[in-house]
C-alpha cells in the first residue's frame, strides 16, 4: 500500500508502451510559447537544412491554428532542475547552449563529447556531435532566427534508417538512459521505495502537473528550515530514493495527469487509476450517475435489455439502480480480472514549488466500484436533462455531480477566475471524495447550507429574473442531499415518489407549499407569465414560520381558487390539511430539509395527476372517434 511503489510498478508493467511516450530520464518541451527549430543533418554530420515547428497560435475562433506538440528530450538531473546556472541538456537544448561560443556552449559540447564517445552512443548521436562541434549552428539557422531560449532538436537522415526524427526513436532514449545510469552507478544506496541497492537520485522531477509546473513532489533542498534538520545533517541522510524508481513513479504520474484522466481545479488534481494498468477503465468518481453509466457502456457485455436502455433516453430510468446492478453484476466484472487494486490520489500545491499528496486511497477494485455504487444509490434523486431531439425535459433518477452539490452548498462561481471559489471548491471536492471512498458521513453543514440556499428561491436568477429551471436543479440536488442525510442519520430511506400517508409536519407543510405553487402556476401560465408565484415569493419566510406564512400564501390564492373549482391542487390542499395532527399544524417552528422533499413530491404528484387526466381525456376522445368510425 505504498503510493510510490504502486506508481513505479505500474510503469514497469506498461513499460513497452510508456517508454516511447514517457521515457525515463526525459522531460518534455512544447511549441506553446515559442517555435521549435529542427536541424536536419546526414549521418556524417553535414548540414542539410533547417525546419521548425510553428508556435501555437489561436485563430479568430479561439481554436489552435497550429498543432500543439509535446516532444521528449533527454535530461540529466541537474539540467532538469536548472534555473539560472549553467546546466546543459545532453543532446537537444536551447539555442544559447548550441550557438558556438560562450561558457554554455562549452559546457554543452564537452558533455556531448563524452556521451558520443561512450559505448552507448548511437550513430545519430555521433553525427549530431560532429555537426555541433563544427560550430556552424548559428549561421545555419539564420533564416529561422531563433531566440536564445528557442529549443533546437535534430533530425538525422541516414540511408536505411527510417527513424530520421531522433526524438521519435526509442533507441535514442534508451541509449541516453543507459549512459546516464552508467555515470551514476557508483552512488548506490538503499532505496526507500523498492528496498534494493540502486544508484541514488540526486534530484527529483518537476513539471508533474501542468497547472503547477515548477512544483516538485519530492523536494530535498531545504537547508534553512525545520523539515529534516536536527536529527539529519542533509537530505541524503533523511531519505534516499533510487534514480530509476523516482523517474518511473514520476513519469507514470505525469502520464496519468496529461492523459486528462482526472479532475482539475486550480492546482488540485484528482486521479483514479488501476494499479498496474494504463487502461482507462474505472468509472470517474465525481460525475453524476448518468455520465458514469454512459462511460461504462464501452465495457459492458450488453444484454438485450441493456441495449434497449441505451437506445432511448429512458424517462424515469433509475440510473443509480442500473449502475449498482451492472457494477455488481456480470458485464463489468467479467471483462476484467477480479483482484486488481485501484488507487485514488489527490494532489495539490500549497505553494509554487511544492506539490503534495492530500489524499491517497488504495482500494480493491471491487471496493472501489462498491463505494461508487453505494454513493449513487444513497444520494440519488429525480433529475432532469434537456433533450434536444425531443425538445423537452427528460426525467431520470441519478445522483448529482459533485460540482453540482458544491454549487448547491456554496452557490455558483462569481466569475470565470474566481479564486476564492476555487479554494472552496478544492476543499469541498476532497471532503466529498472522502464521503464516497472513506464512507465518511456527509457533512451536516453542507446539508444545512443547501437547504437554506434552496429556501431562498428568489436568489436564483439569470439576467436579473427568477430562474425556474435553475431553481428546480438546485432543489433536486438539495433533495438528494437531504435524502442522504436522512439515510445516514435516521437510517430511513426516503422514497423518490410521494408518500400519501406520511404525516410528518415538515413533509406536510412542504406539500402544502407545493400545492399552492402548482395552483398559482397554472393560473399564471394562462394570464401573466412573468409573475412569480406567491409560494416562491414567501418560501423563505415559510421555511421559518410556516403556520403564519401559510395564511398569507393562502390569501394570495383566493382569486385563483375561484377560477379553478375542481382543480387537483385545490383538492390536494384540502386532503393535506386533513392529514395534519392538530398540534402540528399550529406549531410555528422552522422547518427542516424534509419540507423540500414534500414540496418536490407534491409538485411532481400534481403534474402526474394532470398528465393522467389528460391521457384519460385523450383515450375517451379516441374511443369516441373509433365508435364514430365504426358507425360510419
Amino acid at each position, binding site marked *: 500500500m505504498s503510493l510510490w511503489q504502486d506508481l513505479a510498478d505500474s510503469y514497469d508493467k506498461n513499460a513497452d508502451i510508456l517508454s516511447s511516450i514517457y521515457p525515463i530520464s526525459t522531460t518534455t518541451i512544447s511549441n506553446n510559447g515559442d517555435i521549435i527549430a529542427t536541424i536536419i543533418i546526414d549521418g556524417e554530420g553535414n548540414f542539410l537544412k533547417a525546419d521548425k515547428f510553428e508556435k501555437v497560435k489561436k485563430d479568430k475562433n479561439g481554436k489552435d491554428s497550429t498543432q500543439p506538440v509535446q516532444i521528449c528530450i533527454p535530461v540529466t538531473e541537474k539540467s532538469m532542475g536548472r534555473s539560472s546556472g549553467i546546466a546543459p541538456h545532453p543532446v537537444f537544448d536551447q539555442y544559447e547552449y548550441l550557438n558556438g561560443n560562450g561558457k554554455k556552449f562549452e559546457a554543452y559540447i564537452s558533455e556531448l563529447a563524452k556521451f558520443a564517445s561512450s559505448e552507448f552512443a548511437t550513430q545519430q548521436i555521433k553525427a549530431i556531435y560532429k555537426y555541433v562541434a563544427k560550430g556552424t549552428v548559428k549561421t545555419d539557422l539564420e533564416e529561422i532566427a531563433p531566440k536564445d531560449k528557442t529549443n533546437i532538436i535534430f533530425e538525422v537522415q541516414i540511408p536505411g534508417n527510417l527513424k530520421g526524427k531522433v526524438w521519435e526513436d526509442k533507441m535514442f532514449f534508451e541509449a541516453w538512459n543507459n549512459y546516464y545510469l552508467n555515470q551514476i552507478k557508483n552512488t548506490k544506496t538503499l532505496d526507500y521505495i523498492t528496498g534494493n541497492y540502486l544508484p541514488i537520485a540526486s534530484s527529483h522531477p518537476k513539471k508533474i502537473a501542468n497547472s503547477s509546473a515548477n512544483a516538485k513532489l519530492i523536494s530535498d533542498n531545504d537547508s534553512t528550515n525545520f523539515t529534516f534538520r536536527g536529527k539529519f545533517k542533509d537530505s541524503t541522510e533523511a531519505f534516499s530514493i533510487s534514480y530509476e524508481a523516482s523517474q518511473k513513479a514520476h513519469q507514470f504520474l505525469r502520464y496519468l495527469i496529461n492523459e486528462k484522466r482526472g479532475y482539475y481545479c486550480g492546482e488540485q488534481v484528482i486521479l483514479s487509476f488501476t494499479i498496474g494498468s494504463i487502461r482507462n477503465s474505472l468509472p470517474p468518481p465525481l460525475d453524476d450517475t448518468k455520465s458514469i453509466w454512459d462511460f461504462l457502456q464501452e465495457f459492458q457485455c450488453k444484454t438485450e435489455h441493456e441495449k434497449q436502455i441505451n437506445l432511448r433516453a429512458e424517462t424515469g430510468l433509475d440510473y443509480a439502480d442500473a449502475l449498482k446492478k451492472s457494477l455488481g453484476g456480470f458485464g463489468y466484472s467479467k471483462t476484467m480480472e477480479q483482484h486488481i487494486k485501484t488507487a485514488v490520489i489527490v494532489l495539490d500545491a500549497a505553494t509554487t514549488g511544492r506539490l503534495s499528496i*492530500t489524499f491517497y486511497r488504495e482500494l480493491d477494485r471491487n471496493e472501489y466500484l462498491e463505494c461508487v455504487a453505494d454513493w449513487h444509490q444513497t444520494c440519488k434523486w429525480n433529475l432532469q436533462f434537456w433533450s434536444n431531439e425531443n425538445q423537452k425535459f427528460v426525467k431520470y433518477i441519478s445522483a448529482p455531480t459533485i460540482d453540482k452539490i458544491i454549487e448547491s452548498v456554496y452557490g455558483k462561481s462569481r466569475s470565470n477566475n474566481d479564486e476564492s471559489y476555487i479554494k472552496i471548491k478544492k476543499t469541498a471536492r476532497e471532503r466529498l471524495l472522502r464521503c464516497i471512498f472513506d464512507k465518511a458521513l456527509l457533512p451536516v453543514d453542507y446539508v444545512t447550507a443547501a437547504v437554506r440556499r434552496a429556501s431562498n428561491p428568489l436568489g436564483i436568477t439569470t439576467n436579473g429574473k427568477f430562474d425556474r429551471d435553475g431553481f428546480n436543479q438546485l432543489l433536486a440536488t438539495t433533495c438528494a442531499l437531504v435524502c442522504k442525510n436522512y439515510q445516514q442519520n435516521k437510517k430511513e430511506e426516503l422514497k423518490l415518489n410521494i408518500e400519501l400517508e406520511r404525516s410528518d409536519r415538515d413533509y406536510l407543510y412542504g406539500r402544502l407549499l407545493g400545492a399552492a405553487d402548482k395552483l398559482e402556476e397554472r393560473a399564471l401560465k394562462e394570464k401573466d407569465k412573468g409573475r412569480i408565484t406567491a409560494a416562491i415569493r414567501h418560501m423563505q419566510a415559510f421555511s421559518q414560520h410556516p403556520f403564519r406564512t401559510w395564511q398569507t400564501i393562502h390569501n394570495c390564492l383566493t382569486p385563483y381558487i375561484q377560477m379553478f373549482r375542481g382543480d387537483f391542487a385545490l383538492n390536494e390542499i384540502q386532503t393535506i390539511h386533513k392529514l395534519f395532527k392538530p398540534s402540528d399544524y399550529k406549531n410555528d417552528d422552522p422547518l427542516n430539509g424534509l419540507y423540500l422533499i414534500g414540496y418536490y413530491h407534491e409538485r411532481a404528484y400534481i403534474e402526474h395527476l394532470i398528465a393522467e387526466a389528460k391521457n384519460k381525456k385523450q383515450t375517451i376522445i379516441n374511443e369516441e372517434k373509433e365508435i364514430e368510425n365504426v358507425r360510419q
Partner: protein
Amino acid sequence: MRLQMNKKRNSVEFKITGRYALFSDPITRVGGEKFSYQVPTYQALKGILESIYWKPTFIWYVDAVRVINKIQTESKGVKPIKMNGGNDLSYYTYLRDVEYQVLAHFEWNEFRKDLLPDRNENKHHHIAKRCIEKGGRRDVFLGTRECQGYVEPCDFGHGTGFYDCYGEIDFSIQFHSYDYPDSTGKDELAIRLWRAKMKDGYIEFPLPKDCDPDLRRIIRDMTTKRFEVNQNFTLIDEDQSILDLLTEERS
C-alpha cells in the same frame, strides 16, 4: 482470526486511541509536506511505550499491534513556522480516529552495565502496568506531537476490529525504526526499513535484530552520551539543596 500471541513473562498490553495520528512518510516529509503511513511504525509505538514508562536499564520491544478502526485519512492545510520567522504553507495528511492495541515486552539493555543493580524484572513490570492504568507518565502522542493519544489497559486481541476478517494487506517498504548507539553499542546512527504486512488487522513485528539486514542503512556517526557522576549529574544523596530541605523538614 485471533492471533495466538507468544506472550512473555514481562509483556504489557494496552490500547491507545486518538483523534488524529501522523506517522510521516520520510520521502515526502523532507519537502515539507507530511503524509502519514497507513499504520504506525515500530519506532512510533516504541516512542509511545517510552512515554508511558522508561528507564535506561531496559529497552522496549514491540511484539505486535492490532488496528481496530478503519484506516481513514484527513488532510489539513497548515501554516508551519519557518526558522527565521514567517510562515510556510503546507498540506499535512493525518490518520483519523485511530485505535490500536499494542503488545510489547522489555529486555535489559546490555550496553548499560553500570545499571546492573537496577535489573529487577518484577519491579519494572509492575511499575509499567501501573503506568498504563494511569494512562502513562508523560504525554503520549501518535507520531507527531499535535496528535494526542490516550492510553488504557486492555486485553490484547479482545473485542472486534474493522479488519477482523479482512485478510492480508501488504503495505510494502516502510520505515521501521532507528538504531541508536546506546542500544547497539556501535557509534553510529542507522535506520531500518521493513516490509509491513497486516493480517486480519494484526501486524507482527520481528525483533530488530531479526529484521532483514539488507534493509538497514547507516546514516552517520553518533556517540552515546556518557553520564558521569558529578560531571553531568549528581546523586540525590549528595545534592546539597535537597539535603537542606530534608534537614528543614526534620526540624
